[in-house]
């Protein structure tokens, strides 16, 4: 069944096949039963006919015998015979022949002499005598090539003197008269043969070949039961009846024959009409199942087709014409397909629309961008300056509405351009321009147009607008939209209303990332090294500590500033590894110092990020404790801005572990008294910006002096950085500063150099590096 592509073909073939099979079975059953019936009928009639023929044969024989007997009893005839009166005997026989319509009538003497048969020779007489002497008295007699039904009657005078033989020819006419007596139109034939010679038919000499062979077969099996013959004219039913014979070694058989075709003839009409009815039924069945199957499968095919269309994303709807299961299925399908289409369009819309402003989103713009020729095409990022503050002032809802207003304004200025929302405060617009200059000036005009206050209901919001633009076709790894965004940042950085993307100023983020992996390698290959800047204790008049600094001599980039890679490490999360490495190195080197006889406090800069990582803090405490180090961690106030509570907690735990805390770069940036209050530091480092320009009586001097006093009053030591002159050092000493650090004392040097610097200095101060008590 798997070969059928269509359900309707399958149904039609199935139904028609079943019906055809049933019709065929019926036809076979009818034919078998009819032909068996016909055969049986013919056999019955043949058997009955055979019995009738026996009687007729016997009757004819008796008639002949009666005539013969009368003659044989006739005294005069006997007297004539006994006296050898041949003429009288002949005339008597002649008389009987004509009277009884006999074909032959003659006398066979006991001495085998024949009377009344002049054409027969002595040999024939001998043969007859033998038969008659053997007791033959009736049967088939063959004489001179002719076949007869004959009887013989002995003549007693009073002893047996011979036999009278009466015979009638068995010709066709005789057989036809026999056939006429039968109830059915059968054909009767006598077959004879002598010895093993072939059979022949005296009544029908034309009979030959197959027919004769068939009949002979029937004759041989002449057991009184009908047999079947396969003649040239089809099947015959035949009945063979053996007949008695006169001749020695002779056989004779009466064969009754009836063609089966004739017997079947009455049923032919029945068979034909049965066949016709069967064929008609089959045709009606095929047509009916075809229509039925089509009516069933047409909606199914339609559904099949619709499902295929739905799968391909096309519009799919099925005509519903019925109310049955298929109709309901089609209805459900339509509902489902419509639902799918609706959801699909909604999802698509959602995917391409910014929900807050109903403006297209970045993806929508990207899709349009992809389809637009890149030549002369620019992308403009429009940003609302100080958006967080504006949003804080008017609320999220109005801020979004404001952005929407701006978007609509863009549409008014550049009607052909698509404006999408890029982020909370940024719009992104496509722009066609002949040149970069023209694009920049057009964008400048746009910024101007947008910079009018936005009316939001009752409220009027002043907006400052900046814009960055990027050429779409520019060869840069970042996408045009990202570049436009960067350009916006660059415009803001430069305090310009409009800026085009400047690739050089932006740098190469990829190279920055590679710098980090190179930094990790540099820890191993020694291209990052530690440098130490000694700190001079003004009260003790001696070097009391060093600040650990990083020096990276990059094999290709040359000297890489710590500002650069530390910041990058903070941004990329490598700061932890950098800090760990620095700390371990510093602890090692502190031991080296100690071994060289210099017990120095080791100051290590700690990134503010590490104050948000308690796990790392515990690791540091363990490391320091294990090395028995004296460490001062220098932090900036801003380190505690992000999460003051946690940062302060960590600071406390570090201090509890005996680690000194120093507030670095105090005075620059967001120095706040609050932090001074919160951070329980051991040391305050005044930013070198105050120290470098320190002069007697200047404002800096006043600030430094008061800061020193403030720190002292809070219990902190004060470190001054950037001490480059003897005057400055003297001044700081006068102000009560505790520790000085700077080029005047010693520039940052390698471990070995610092040890070398320290050792002679203990006895005699080094040249160039002044020291003051």
């Amino acid at each position, binding site marked *: 069944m798997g070969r059928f592509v269509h359900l309707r073909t399958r149904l039609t073939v199935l139904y028609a096949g079943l019906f055809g099979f049933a019709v065929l079975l019926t036809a076979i059953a009818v034919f078998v039963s009819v032909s068996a019936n016909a055969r049986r009928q013919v056999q019955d009639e043949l058997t009955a006919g055979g019995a009738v023929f026996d009687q007729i044969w016997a009757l004819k024989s008796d008639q002949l015998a009666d005539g013969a007997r009368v003659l044989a009893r006739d*005294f005069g005839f006997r007297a004539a015979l006994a006296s050898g009166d041949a003429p009288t005997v002949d005339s008597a026989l002649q008389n009987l022949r004509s009277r009884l319509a006999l074909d032959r009538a003659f006398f066979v003497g006991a001495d085998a002499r024949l009377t009344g048969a002049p054409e027969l020779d002595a040999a024939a007489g001998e043969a007859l005598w033998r038969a008659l002497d053997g007791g033959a008295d009736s049967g088939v007699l063959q004489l001179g090539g002719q076949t007869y039904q004959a009887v013989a009657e*002995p003549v007693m*005078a009073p002893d047996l003197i011979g036999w009278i033989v009466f015979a009638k020819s068995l010709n066709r006419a005789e057989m036809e008269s026999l056939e006429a007596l039968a109830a059915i139109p059968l054909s009767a034939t006598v077959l004879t043969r002598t010895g093993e010679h072939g059979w022949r038919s005296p009544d029908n000499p034309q009979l030959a070949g197959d027919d004769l062979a068939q009949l002979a077969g029937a004759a041989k099996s002449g057991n009184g039961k009908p047999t079947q013959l396969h003649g040239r004219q089809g099947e015959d039913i035949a009945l063979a009846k053996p007949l008695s014979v006169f001749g020695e070694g002779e056989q004779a058989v009466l064969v009754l024959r009836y063609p089966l075709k004739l017997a079947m003839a009455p049923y032919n009409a029945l068979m034909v009409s049965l066949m016709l009815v069967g064929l008609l039924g089959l045709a009606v069945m095929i047509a009916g199942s075809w229509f039925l199957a089509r009516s069933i499968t047409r909606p199914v095919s339609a559904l099949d087709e619709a499902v295929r269309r739905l799968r391909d994303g096309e519009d799919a709807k099925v005509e519903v014409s019925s109310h049955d299961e298929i109709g309901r299925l089609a209805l459900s399908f339509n509902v489902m397909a419509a639902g799918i289409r609706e959801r699909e369009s909604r999802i698509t819309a959602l995917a391409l629309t910014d929900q807050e402003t109903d403006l297209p989103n970045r993806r929508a713009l990207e899709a349009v961008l992809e389809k637009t020729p890149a030549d002369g095409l620019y992308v403009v990022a429009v940003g609302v300056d100080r958006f967080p503050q504006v949003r804080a002032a008017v609320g999220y809802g109005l801020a979004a509405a404001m952005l929407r207003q701006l978007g609509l304004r863009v549409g008014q200025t550049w009607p052909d351009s698509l404006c999408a929302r890029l982020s909370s405060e940024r719009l992104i617009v496509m722009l066609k321009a002949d040149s970069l200059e023209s694009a920049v000036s057009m964008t400048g005009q746009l910024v101007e147009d947008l910079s009018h206050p936005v009316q939001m209901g009752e409220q009027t919001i002043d907006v400052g607008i900046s814009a960055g633009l990027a050429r779409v076709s520019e060869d840069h790894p970042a996408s045009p939209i990202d570049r436009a965004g960067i350009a916006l940042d660059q415009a803001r950085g430069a305090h310009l209303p409009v800026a085009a993307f400047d690739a050089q100023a932006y740098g190469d983020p990829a190279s920055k990332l590679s710098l980090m992996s190179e930094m990790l390698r540099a820890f191993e290959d020694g291209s990052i090294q530690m440098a130490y800047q000694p700190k001079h204790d003004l009260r003790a008049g001696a070097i009391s500590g060093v600040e650990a600094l990083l020096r990276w001599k990059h094999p290709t980039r040359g000297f890489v500033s710590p500002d650069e890679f530390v910041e990058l490490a903070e941004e990329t999360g490598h700061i932890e590894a950098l800090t760990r490495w620095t700390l371990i190195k510093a602890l090692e080197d502190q031991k080296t110092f100690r071994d060289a006889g210099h017990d120095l406090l080791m100051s290590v800069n700690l990134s503010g990020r590490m104050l948000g990582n308690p796990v790392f803090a515990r690791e540091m405490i363990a490391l320091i404790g294990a090395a028995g180090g004296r460490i001062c961690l220098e932090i900036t106030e801003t380190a505690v801005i992000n999460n003051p509570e946690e940062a302060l907690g960590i600071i406390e735990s570090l201090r509890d572990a005996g680690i000194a805390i120093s507030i670095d770069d105090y005075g620059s940036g967001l120095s706040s008294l609050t932090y001074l209050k919160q951070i329980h530091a051991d040391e305050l480092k005044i930013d070198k910006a105050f120290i470098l320009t320190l002069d007697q009586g200047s404002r800096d001097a006043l600030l430094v002096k008061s800061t020193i006093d403030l720190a002292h009053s809070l219990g902190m030591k004060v470190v001054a950085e950037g001490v480059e002159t003897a005057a400055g050092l003297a001044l700081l000493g006068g102000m009560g500063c505790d520790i000085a650090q700077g080029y005047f004392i010693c520039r940052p040097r390698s471990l070995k150099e610092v040890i070398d610097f320290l050792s002679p200095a203990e006895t005699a101060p080094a040249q160039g590096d002044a020291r003051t008590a």
Partner: protein
Amino acid sequence: MMRLFLCLLTLMMAPMPAVAGDLVMTVRDAGGRAVPDAVVTVYPASGTPKGPIRFSWPLTVAQQNLQFQPFVLIAPVGSAVAFPNRDKVQHHVYSFSAGNRFELKLFGRDESRSVTFKAVGVAAIGCNIHDGMIGYVKVVDTPYAIKTGADGVAQLSGLPSGKATVKIWHPYLRAPANELSRPVVLVAAGAVRQTVAVELRQSAGHGH
């Protein structure tokens, strides 16, 4: 047509002593059963004695119970045989046998006709009214003739010694003229015993 003669013969022959030779002939059929009514005749090589032949049995064929009695009668040639009717019905006795043809038209009870048999041979006699009646008169030209009894044995005494021909005749004997011929050597004193097996044909529907 024959004239009917009545001939009464008196049996005067006493059993002869076996001074001369004897012949004891037993006739049996193919099945070994005794064959009665077989006529045994002997023709010595020296010839038969001249003079009239006399037999010990009456030359009579009676019709009794629609049968000829006896079935077979041996009669000397030229003798007259009586045909007395002892039935209530009439009979029409005839014979078509060559040389001895006669016809005794209807004669009634206690009537008797006689026929002289002039030819040596066999006269088959029948009744034209009753098909079942058949009898035979064996007309012989030798005194040495006798028929077998119920035991199939025929005994002849006083035969001259020397070579002789023995003939056995029976109406049903399957042989030319229903007769067999045998040479025999007879002895002067004592009996010669012979047994002959004969083939009989079925009687053609008659009582015997």
